[in-house]
């Protein structure tokens, strides 16, 4: 692609094609489908955080006249499928809310009542609820066969430490020897939840001929098919998964919770089943993002040249080993900095909490928070503006990352410069107010995307894509198809195909959809153009090379003649049959998106209450296909990060029970908690994408943690090192300091 492409449709602010359905209530989400004869499934969950299941007696529930089916772990056909013990616990429960049994009954309330008829005999064990407890020598073990992976020597005894990671470049000793100023500090972050507003839900039907249907809210319906087919021991061709509209995910709708249970219940009862989690189930049994304890040490010369960076990270996995984002946490921690000597070691521990799930840029917010806080403290120590310090050490094209590749062209310099010249950075602050700046880095991924564009007889087209649309991506697909075919955006509709309509597509995650599925759309559109040209060439009796495609029409360059898409498609039956274009790709070249955020926060010293006065999010989009939805991602990521920094945390009691599984007590930001969030879109094109796109969905959640952490610290004159900085914690810090 060229540096400065002229676009006709890309960059406009079109109305999204699914918009009318969403503002009128017509759009159908996971819980909105009802089938004839349908009954309801519900899950019995453990009241204990850590216990052995001695026995489960389902006989009373089975005898209940309103109950059609009861199941436990033993009813899952494939007992060795991956993740099966999170679907329904086998012989041990590992967290408050762990699924133990399920029933299907005539109504949802009947199913709930029937859960009370199931008798479970537990032997209660002491729960392990924090990193500190997990790594202490006298801690109970969650798994007596868990030996730490990644150690130099295989450990002789099991522990709650599931794995160790290490990455390095250069020589830390050399780097710290060159340093004239060194700052080191430890930070903690709490367990958080993605907080999507739509609870997990599905409606399923198992048919007597062995063919099944699942309707559900998921970021990846092909993954739902693979997991469910594996657990039930059925062929993928006999299971059609239909992605409903999805009411938020942020990584939390990548895992599968209900679908295999619902399908077994449907098979047992012979009826369609609907299951929907209630809100406290969502908080107890889905989601969470890892709590962490992270230590960072950075050395620099007095002129601001950073000489060495070292980190030790510790992430909770929840109960299931391997479920934390420790890998990306280590890979991202220092990437915004071009520093020769870097080292990170990471540990994952298991605790009696729900199995962790991906949460927007998984792992990066916590690790980069620690790094960015230390960078800001270092700037204070050196007496250098924090943006200048970042610019002096900035990652750019050619920077060697700790995790492997050298960076291609990226936009961090441009983001930092835009931050420095922003309105907000020039505004003076008053008493009890503080400002924080922070950078953020996320890789982005490519991966497998499948797209078909079916051309209709009137020359319009239907884009069938395999990526659930979680935030308006269908609009971007329309625009990219329009750009390639040089036809109006309105000439295309865009739908999410079922698993039976398309080959495999990776889930919507990793900020990959507009990048990778967009590439597949462009490839499918190019395929359509090539076929349209061939048909026109045949009509004119010239070779296809003598046909141009311009403004949505074929032009005969060797004579006179113009054929529009409508004309070619309208006579397609006579020229070889109807036309569809295909783009089944495995996309490479996802390029990182860097961001810089500014937060101005006021703290009420009497109450500890924080007010976000002003916020600016600056990020490199490569090329913004639909600027409004790019801004929306920046703003939404900022809001989630602000919530993470200021309010959100899981609260457990001494028995390991989650005490705040609801939106009243797990308080995500409200409209009244936030100011307008200013955005600046930086565009440094990604040369691997035909239009220059970088994924942009995730980076925005990273910088707010340190931007807010620094702003609050400055406002009260005390260095805060633990999230969330809720009013009681701020008040305590003020009292402890005075």
């Amino acid at each position, binding site marked *: 692609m060229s540096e400065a492409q002229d676009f006709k449709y890309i960059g406009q*602010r079109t*109305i*999204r094609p*699914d*918009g*009318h359905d*969403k*503002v*009128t*209530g*017509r*759009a*159908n*989400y996971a*819980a*909105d489908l*009802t089938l004839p004869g349908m009954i309801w499934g519900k899950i019995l969950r453990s009241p204990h955080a850590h216990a052995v299941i001695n026995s489960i007696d389902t006989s009373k529930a089975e005898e209940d006249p309103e109950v059609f089916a009861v199941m436990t772990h033993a009813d899952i056909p494939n007992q060795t499928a991956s993740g099966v013990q999170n679907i329904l616990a086998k012989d041990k429960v590992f967290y408050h809310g762990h699924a133990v049994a399920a029933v299907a009954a005539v109504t949802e*309330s009947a199913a709930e009542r029937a859960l009370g008829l199931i008798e479970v005999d537990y032997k209660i064990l002491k729960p392990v609820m924090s990193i500190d407890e997990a790594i202490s020598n006298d801690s109970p073990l969650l798994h007596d066969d868990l030996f730490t992976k990644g150690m130099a020597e295989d450990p002789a005894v099991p522990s709650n430490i599931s794995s160790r990671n290490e990455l390095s470049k250069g020589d830390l000793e050399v780097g710290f020897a060159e340093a004239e100023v060194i700052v080191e500090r430890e930070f903690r972050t709490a367990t958080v939840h*993605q*907080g*999507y*507003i*739509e*609870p997990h839900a599905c409606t399923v039907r198992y048919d007597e001929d062995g063919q099944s249907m699942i309707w559900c809210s998921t970021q990846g319906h092909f993954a739902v098919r693979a997991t469910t087919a594996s657990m039930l021991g059925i062929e993928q061709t006999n299971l059609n998964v239909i992605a409903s*509209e*999805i*009411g*938020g*995910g*942020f990584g939390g709708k990548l895992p599968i919770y209900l679908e295999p249970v619902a399908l077994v219940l449907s098979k047992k009862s012979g009826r369609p089943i609907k299951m*929907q989690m*209630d*809100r406290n189930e969502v908080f107890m049994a889905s989601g969470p993002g890892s709590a962490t304890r992270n230590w960072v040490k950075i050395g620099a010369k007095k002129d601001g040249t950073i000489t060495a960076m070292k980190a030790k990270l510790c992430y909770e996995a929840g109960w299931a080993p391997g479920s934390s984002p420790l890998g990306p946490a280590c890979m991202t921690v220092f990437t915004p900095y071009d520093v020769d000597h870097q080292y990170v070691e990471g540990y994952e521990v298991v605790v009696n909490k729900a199995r962790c799930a991906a949460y927007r840029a998984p792992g990066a917010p916590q690790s980069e928070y620690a790094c960015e806080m230390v960078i800001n403290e270092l700037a204070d120590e050196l007496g250098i503006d924090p943006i200048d310090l970042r610019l002096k050490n900035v990652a750019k094209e050619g920077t060697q990352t700790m995790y492997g590749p050298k960076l291609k062209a990226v936009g961090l310099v441009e983001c930092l410069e835009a931050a420095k010249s922003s309105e907000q950075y020039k505004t003076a602050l008053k008493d009890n107010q503080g400002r924080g700046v922070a950078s953020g880095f996320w890789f982005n991924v490519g991966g497998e995307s499948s797209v078909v564009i079916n051309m209709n007889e009137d020359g319009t087209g239907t884009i069938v894509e395999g990526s659930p649309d*979680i*935030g*308006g991506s269908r609009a971007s697909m329309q625009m990219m198809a329009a750009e390639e075919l040089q036809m109006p955006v309105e000439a295309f509709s865009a739908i999410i195909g079922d698993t039976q309509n398309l080959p495999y597509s990776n889930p919507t995650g990793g900020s990959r959809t507009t990048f990778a599925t967009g590439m597949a759309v462009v490839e499918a559109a190019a395929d359509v153009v090539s076929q349209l040209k061939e048909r026109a060439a045949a009509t004119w009796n010239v070779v296809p090379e003598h046909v141009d495609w311009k403004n949505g029409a074929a032009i005969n360059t060797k004579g006179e003649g113009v054929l529009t898409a409508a004309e070619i498609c309208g006579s397609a039956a006579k020229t070889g049959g109807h036309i569809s274009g295909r783009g089944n790709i495995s996309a490479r070249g996802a390029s990182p998106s860097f961001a810089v955020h500014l937060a101005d926060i006021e703290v009420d010293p009497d109450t500890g209450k924080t007010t976000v006065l002003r916020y600016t999010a600056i990020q490199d989009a490569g090329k913004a296909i*639909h600027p*409004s*939805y790019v*801004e*929306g*991602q920046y*703003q*939404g990521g*900022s*809001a*989630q990060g602000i919530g993470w920094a200021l309010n959100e945390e899981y609260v457990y009691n001494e028995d390991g029970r989650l005490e705040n599984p*609801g*939106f*009243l007590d797990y308080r*995500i*930001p*409200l*409209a*009244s*908690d*936030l100011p*307008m*969030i200013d955005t600046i879109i930086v565009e440094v094109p990604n040369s691997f994408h035909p239009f220059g796109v970088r994924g942009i969905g995730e980076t925005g959640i990273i910088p707010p943690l340190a931007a807010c952490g620094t702003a609050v610290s400055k406002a009260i004159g005390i260095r805060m090192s633990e999230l969330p900085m809720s009013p009681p914690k701020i008040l305590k810090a003020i009292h402890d300091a005075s």
Partner: protein
Amino acid sequence: MAKTHVTTTINGDLKEFLCEPGDTLLQVLRDELGLTGTKEGCGSGDCGACSVLINDRLVCSCLVLGVETNGDVIETVEGIGDSDKLHVIQEKFLEHAALQCGICTPGLVVSTKALLEENPNPTEEEARYYLAGNLCRCTGYDKIIKAVLDAAETMRESA
């Protein structure tokens, strides 16, 4: 359990239904009447996704029992706008890209209608506090508030 016969007016239509004493209005709307535009996010009155108007008063339909609504006039998101034309509020939500996943949108459209009927010229702060009962996890509210204020201005001009 014996069901109760209830008569209401929903979106201008006479609607009769049978419900159990414990059924919420939300359950009745979604599961009995097929009005699934009203969403359940929490079932405890914390998220506002199930917002409806009862006799012009904004409520969370998960906190109202179906049996309580006998004789009431209820408006849901399906009743906002005409069949061939969106309401200004709906148009402005689309123009400003004030939705991403869209699950909170029906509740916000209903709440915004209630806000602008009470206060046709709200300040940004008034809009933010009035809509504080409608959670959105995707947008950070920026574009929602801009859509609401723009809708207010457009409605004032055409009033």
